[in-house]
């Protein structure tokens, strides 16, 4: 797990759209990736009202089917109860709630020139990285067999073939160096 605690530059190379509230470039924050991953805020929506409607209107009880499909095909929910029974026990998204949400969101956008007001619309902090391990590194610094699981063993043959094919080998006891290649 890696950390990118200041992610604005990473959003830039990801081609995310950055919006600067009131023209202050230092306050720019990523709002989305055009056409793929757009935030519920301007400029993807003309107003916050439109953003709230787009997000919450499908969740209104009146916007959803009131009975299970007649053909017997259940909706993809992992419950044994009917979908109607499940929805009866859930919090109802009401027109009053929509109005309240719009009031709050408009206040934030009108006051701070952006939504959300204090945090970025897109949040990226932790990376997860996967790569094949170079077992020779561990062989050099650890007793033989340490940190050795079935997963490592399954990859051992592959790893050594890969290293041998590209000609990157190091004798046991040689100084530790980072052998990086991309095949």
């Amino acid at each position, binding site marked *: 797990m*890696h*950390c990118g605690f200041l992610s*604005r530059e990473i959003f830039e190379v990801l081609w995310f759209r950055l919006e600067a509230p009131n023209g202050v470039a230092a306050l720019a924050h990523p709002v989305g990736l055009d056409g793929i991953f757009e935030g519920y805020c301007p400029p993807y929506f003309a107003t916050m009202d439109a953003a709230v409607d787009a997000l919450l209107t499908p969740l209104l009880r009146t916007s959803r089917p009131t009975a299970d499909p007649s053909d017997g095909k259940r909706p993809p929910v992992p419950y044994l109860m009917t979908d109607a*029974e499940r929805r009866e026990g859930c919090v*109802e998204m*009401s027109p009053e709630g929509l109005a309240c949400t719009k009031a709050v969101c408009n206040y934030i956008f009108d006051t701070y020139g952006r939504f959300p007001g*204090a*945090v970025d619309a897109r949040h990226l902090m932790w990376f997860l*990285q996967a790569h094949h391990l170079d077992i020779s590194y561990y062989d050099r610094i650890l*007793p033989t067999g340490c940190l050795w699981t079935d997963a490592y063993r399954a990859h051992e043959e592959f790893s050594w073939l890969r290293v041998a094919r590209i000609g990157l080998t190091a004798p046991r006891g040689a100084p530790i160096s980072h052998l990086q290649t991309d095949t």
Partner: protein
Amino acid sequence: MAGAAEQTLLAAATPDGRPNVRPDSPFEFQLMVHTDMGPGGVRRGVRFGPPQPGAQNASSCRAMQRSATADLAPRTGRSLATICMFDNRAIALGRSLQILTDRIWRTGPVASRAKSSYPCDLMAYPQSGLTEDVKLVHLAKPVKPTTRSRRDNLRIEDNVMTESLRPDLLRQVWEYPLFDALYGRRSRRFGLGFEMVEGPTPYKSQHVVYLIDKTTSPALKMQTAVTPDDRKTVLDLYRESRRELQPGRLGIPRRVPPLCGHNLWDSNMPGSALFMPVCDVSLSLIAPSAIRGSPSWRVPGRGQRPHTVSTGAPSLLYRVHRAGSHLPQHVPCNGSYGPRRLDALRIPVAGNL
């Protein structure tokens, strides 16, 4: 592999030197840390198992077996770093077991701590734990059974584990498959003896509160949750949903920031696959606001008292008004540290929502 110089640091060492044997304890568990100092190296390890002092086959974890039998190189800085790694693993494992068992009794014979037998160079590495054996002593202190609940019908003693910890239990925890853990996750982790009174799936357990399953491992049952066919479906869905944004490797600036200094050497290097989860904060803020403003929303854990729009909306707006002069609650604001940190992060000091 433990030799004559083996020291039992925690198995029976009580402050006053008396053995702390609890023959009436619900179950018995033993945590032992062994060291074996030879003329040219250090042999060190941890062993978990039933209270059989001196038993060489009591290890219940493969990794612990390896560390227990590891014959490290001469005392160089490199080998000491390895020792530190072992110690951290032992401590983490011990804490996990403490949570797992809720109590760890010290049993077995008295043994001295014999700090004088530690090599001098090890004393310079307090993080290794070798110089501060008391760091692990807290794991050996008996913990009182706690109810964790105020339910009147709680009868915690009914199902307290009465058998010794199975030697293979730790191995099962250690080797539990990642994907079984991922797909075995449930948003509602309903426990024995629990009761859920709200939401669409109210339920009251027909069991009393259970501390430890003494006969079976739930992990084995959960493995049936995902069949091989299901796995293929998941992989197909992933491939269908995947969209290429850019060809080639992402050109993240290799500096601090955006990367952390300790990741510069390997993060996003050729040959690696980097996964970057991006959260939609705008969605996360809009949806809870609507729920709290809805008449049917009730304060979780407070029964049927509703929070309707008549009380919810002013509350939210009041928070918005306050936000103009307050830092976000999760930001430390002691002294001037908070504002400077915010300035460094280029986050406007504004809101509290």
